[in-house]
Structure formats: structure tokens, C-alpha cells
């Protein structure tokens, strides 16, 4: 009986590992290939976009995906960081967009989530439903009015046109509210009896308990806005203001040699943040998903 159990467990584990390997494959390849020399990249991937007929005779002219570089080098990173300043400039563009969005949305959403989960007022549930509904809409739905709004506020072609709507997005409110529902109301009652006001309760009781929820939200927002493509394309005409996400997608043949390193540079902050905050992040997501 015990033997059968171990065998079944091992078989399932192997199956799950195979799936994990497939999922991680693109990420691992990006990493190892970022250590190739530009020449090796050109040899292996030069055929992308070539539309002529390839036969089995010249099959070696097709893409040759390679896990381990022939020659490990930091050439790409050197090129990227020293000789191509525009990449770094765009990296910072991304940072200056994403950090204020995360900070702003988290603060405003935490306040609103407190109201939606712990205070009682008329129309609360209707308002919340409206928040949820707009959260579900794709960006394109309010594209035109948002554009006109930005134009009238005079913030078109400035990062504010992206920052301001993002800060007030309903997503943070939704997630933190779901999370706050797990905090027992009795805590607040007790604090009220001791004479604490709502601000005091919010800062000293709710916020400390909210850590996993906020960690979850921060990672999810980071994922979403670090990836932003549509908004900058429409609201920022100036190519020098674009974040790296837009730019990386337009890497052309001449720049393929350093594209892997650029991708790694772009991926690294996300992945490191995730690994650092993983347990909080997962708890945060899980508690927002189950009813208390």
C-alpha cells in the first residue's frame, strides 16, 4: 500500500515537473540567451522574418534555438548599458510611471476599501457594483472620452495622462475590499469603545493586518502597469517618453543582438519583487478570492 502511494506521488510529481518545465522554458531561454554574443544570436536567429523557401537541404538556415551559449559573455549587457543609453532612459521612464501609480492607487484604494467594507452608508452596494463593472471594461471602452478629458485637462502627451486614471482605477479598491472583509468587525467595535476614531482605527488596526493584501495588490499592479502598452501608445506621442514595454516590442533586426539582455533587464525587477514577496503575494491573492 505504502509503495503504491509513493509511486503514484512520484508519477504525479514528474508530470507536474514536465508542465512546469514547459511553462518556464521561454523564461529560461531568454536568460541563457542574454549571455550569448551578438554574433551567436545573429547566427542562430538571423532567419526570423525570412519568407523565402527553405528546404531540408538548407534547414540549418532556420532558427536554431539554443539553451546553452557556445561562449558565455556579458557582451549584450555591456552594449546595452554603456553604448545604448536609450534603453536605460526608457527603463527609467517605466519606473517613473509605475512607482507613482502603485503608491497612489494603493493609498487611495485602501481608504476606499475601508469605507466599502467597514462603514455603512446609503448606496454602498450600488457604488461598489459600479466600481466592479468599470474594472471589468477593457481600456478601449473609455478610450475616446478619456482622450478628450486628458486634452481638456491639458495633460495630453505627458505622463500625467496615464498616471491619473491609473491611480483611481477600481481594481485596487476591489481587491483590498475583498481582503478587508476577512478582518472581523469586532476589532473595530472594540477600538470604538476604547474611543478611537476611524482614522486611528484605519492606521493602527487595519493597515498592519492588511500587509498580505497590499503585497498582493502591489505585485499585481506592478505586473499590469509594467506591461502597459496601449495607454502609452495613445497618450504619449513623444517616442522618448515611452516606457520600455512599448519599445521592446519594436526591437528590429539590427537590435536583435542585445534584445535578450534588454528583456532580462526588463524582467528582473518583476521577478525579484515576486520572489521576495511571494508568500505575502499568494496569501493576498488567496484571501481576496475566497469569501470570509
Amino acid at each position: 500500500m505504502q509503495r503504491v502511494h509513493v509511486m503514484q506521488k512520484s508519477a504525479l510529481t514528474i508530470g507536474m515537473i514536465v508542465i512546469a518545465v514547459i511553462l518556464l522554458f521561454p523564461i529560461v531561454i531568454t536568460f541563457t540567451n542574454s549571455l550569448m554574443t551578438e554574433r551567436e544570436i545573429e547566427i542562430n536567429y538571423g532567419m526570423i522574418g525570412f519568407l523565402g523557401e527553405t528546404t531540408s537541404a538548407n534547414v540549418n538556415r532556420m532558427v536554431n534555438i539554443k539553451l546553452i551559449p557556445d561562449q558565455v559573455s556579458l557582451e549584450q549587457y555591456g552594449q546595452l548599458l554603456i553604448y545604448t543609453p536609450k534603453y536605460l532612459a526608457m527603463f527609467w521612464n517605466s519606473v517613473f510611471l509605475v512607482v507613482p501609480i502603485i503608491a497612489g492607487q494603493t493609498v487611495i484604494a485602501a481608504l476606499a476599501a475601508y469605507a466599502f467594507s467597514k462603514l455603512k452608508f446609503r448606496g454602498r452596494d450600488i457604488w461598489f457594483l459600479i466600481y466592479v463593472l468599470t474594472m471589468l471594461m477593457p481600456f478601449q471602452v473609455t478610450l475616446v472620452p478619456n482622450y478628450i478629458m486628458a486634452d481638456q485637462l491639458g495633460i495630453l502627451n505627458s505622463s500625467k495622462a496615464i498616471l491619473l486614471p491609473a491611480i483611481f482605477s477600481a481594481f485596487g479598491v476591489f481587491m483590498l475590499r475583498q481582503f478587508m472583509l476577512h478582518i472581523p468587525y469586532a476589532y473595530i467595535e472594540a477600538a470604538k469603545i476604547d474611543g478611537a476614531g476611524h482614522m486611528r482605527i484605519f492606521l493602527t488596526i487595519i493597515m498592519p493586518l492588511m500587509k498580505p493584501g497590499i503585497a498582493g495588490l502591489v505585485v499585481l499592479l506592478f505586473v499590469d502597469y509594467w506591461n502597459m502598452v496601449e495607454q502609452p501608445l495613445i497618450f504619449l506621442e513623444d517616442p522618448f517618453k515611452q516606457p520600455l514595454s512599448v519599445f521592446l516590442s519594436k526591437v528590429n533586426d539590427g537590435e536583435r543582438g542585445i534584445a535578450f539582455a534588454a528583456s532580462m533587464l526588463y524582467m528582473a525587477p518583476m521577478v525579484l519583487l515576486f520572489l521576495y514577496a511571494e508568500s505575502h503575494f499568494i496569501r493576498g491573492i488567496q484571501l481576496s478570492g475566497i469569501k470570509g
Partner: protein
Amino acid sequence: MLFLLPSVIGFALFYLVPFVMGVSYSFMNSSVERQFVGLDNYNELFASDSFRKAASNTFIFTVVSVPLMLVISLGLALVLNQSVYFRKWLRTAYVLPLVVPVASIILMWQILLDWNGSLNVWLQYFGFERVDWMKTDAARYVVIAVYLWKNVGYNIILFLAGLQQIPQDYYETACMEGAGRFRQFSSITLVYLIPTMFFVVIMSIINSFKVFREAYLIAGDYPHDSIYMLQHYMNNMFMSLDIQKLTAAATLMAGCIMFIVIGLFIMERYFRQSVE
């Protein structure tokens, strides 16, 4: 009330008012003249081939990929929830694609999916014909695969949380009363997962709209017909300044989303009452 104020002001200014404006534009002849024209824009919209194509693609994509996602992520979550080795490591591996920026993985998709790409190298190696992944109907499967790749981990986490909520003694009681594994799954696991399931469905729908980014980054403004989504259509209408069609399409899409979500909420309420 002060807690809500900053959020409500910003929310109204950047979401609610624009949304109402958008809906009202969809009934006007131009945003300059502002004459009410009834359903003219909608009639024109429905007459447009590219709109019909985009709408049906978006519909098909959501209808196919969301259930597929549910089945796959629930299956993986069930296995992970049982006994496997390296459980924590596996969970991390499944979630990792979620945090990898789309743009930094685009190059990989190109390498895999190009006419001269790796997938075709492998196909040829095993004696199959090459497939031009992004320029044939195969593009649809590519986009579904990318969607699954990216979002499966998130749903697994949600399902794991739901599974851990189910008290273990329910299963023990069922076991003693002689319920088989399948019976236990269908009348305990599935039933108690329903609240989680609704949340997962909603998040999966949101994320299925976000797959547009991947499609856009891989294939540009005018991808192959099979992955031309409503968002492509709306973006292109914006670029050609056809505000009427854009707002009409947006209003329709918003209406459909509302319909689905409110339907889901009603269903959830109904299910929860029947459980209690």
C-alpha cells in the same frame, strides 16, 4: 465618508464620466455637432465586416479559453493540493509566467512561432509540414496558448485557497458512507468551490481581454483575421478617428460585459442559497 472621497472623485472624473460620455457619443453624429441620431451608428457598425469579425473572434476566444482555463487550472490545483513532492517549488514555477512582462517574452514567441522558427524546425524533424503560425488560423491557438501560459498560475492559487477552505471531515464522512472518489469530487469539491469558481471566472474574463496585448505585440495593428479582436478594431477606429463606430462598439462591449457579470452574480446568489 472622507475615506471614500478621493477615490470617488478620481473615479468619477476618469472612469464614470468618460463612460457616460462614451455612451452618449454613440448616439450622436459627431462629437463636434452633437446631434442625436438614434441607432444610426449601431446600424453602420453592424454593417461593417471588420466589426463583425472582431466581435465574433472576441466572443469565440472568451467562450473557448475561459472554460478551458477553468478545467486546466482546477485539474492542476487538485493535483498540487494532493500529495506531490516539491509542492512549493512547483507552485512558484506555475505563477512565474504571470509576473514576466509580455514585452520581454515577445522575442521568444517570435523565435518559436516564426515560419523559420523552432516549432517548425521540430515539426519538420518529425516529418510534418511547417505551419505559418501567426499568418493562418493557427494564430487563434497560439493566442489561447499564450493566455493559458500566462494566467494558469493565478487561477491555480485561487483554486488552492478554495480547496483548503473545504473541511477535511466532509471527505471522511463521505468515505465512511461509501462515496467513491468521483462522487466525493462532484458533490463535495465542486459544490464548495462554487464561490471560488465565480471569482476565477470573473478574473479569467478580465484577463482574457488583456491577452490583446500579446496579440498586439506579436502581430501588430492588423494581425491575421482569426485573432483580430474587438480591441484591435477599437484601436484602429481610434487611429482613423471614427469616433462614432468606436463608441458604439465600446458601448456594446460594455453592455455585454455587464450582462455577463450581473448574470454571474445572480447565479452565485442562487447557488449559495441552494447550498445553505
